[in-house]
């Protein structure tokens, strides 16, 4: 069994300030973890992916995430928010070798000027 919890449904930051989007997971297997971003009226786009090669994963557009097994967390961060980062972000867990992905309920990021 696997599950993912995004701890904040909405995060609001000012442009130029750091971003932190929190994600906790559970999995019976060594998990693969993903962050996807969805801009308004668009499909989802992969930001980054963890598959056990390195605990700190760098993604596109300056985002990164750190896998912490002891805390079962995979939080997404960015040092300085841009207006274009305003979107909904989904944390996703995949356990084992099957197809099944479990999506979090999403965190809406608002960036204020």
């Amino acid at each position: 069994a696997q599950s993912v919890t995004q701890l904040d449904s909405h995060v609001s930051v000012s442009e130029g300030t750091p971003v932190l989007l929190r994600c906790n997971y559970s999995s019976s297997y060594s998990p693969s973890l993903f962050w996807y971003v969805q801009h308004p009226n668009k499909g989802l786009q992969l930001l980054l992916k963890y598959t056990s090669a390195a605990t700190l994963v760098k993604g596109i557009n300056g985002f990164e995430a750190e896998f912490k097994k002891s805390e079962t967390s995979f939080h997404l961060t960015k040092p300085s928010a841009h207006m274009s980062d305003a979107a909904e972000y989904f944390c996703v867990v995949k356990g084992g070798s099957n197809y099944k992905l479990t999506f979090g309920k999403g965190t809406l990021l608002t960036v204020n000027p």
Partner: protein
Amino acid sequence: DAGITQSPRHKVTETGTPVTLRCHQTENHRYMYWYRQDPGHGLRLIHYSYGVKDTDKGEVSDGYSVSRSKTEDFLLTLESATSSQTSVYFCAISAGVSEKLFFGSGTQLSVL
């Protein structure tokens, strides 16, 4: 962008009517998926396909059927649409089960 086309982009229909949504890919990927997205639920898998004529159910498959007669096309059918099926439907593809998903732009379906 990955070559994924969903049609139609928007559809309004009445309760009890059949509806078919189409997903077409030009990437020759083996795996294709149908998700629905609803506020507060994230994305939930309806059905997926791991090859031509090979499909399986996801977590919310009741009321939906799928078909995949060609690698490039994956059809989602609502045999008798209900208001609870009002949602945004996304098709996704991947080269393998551990590979990243590429998503289409979505179909907004309203069942009145």
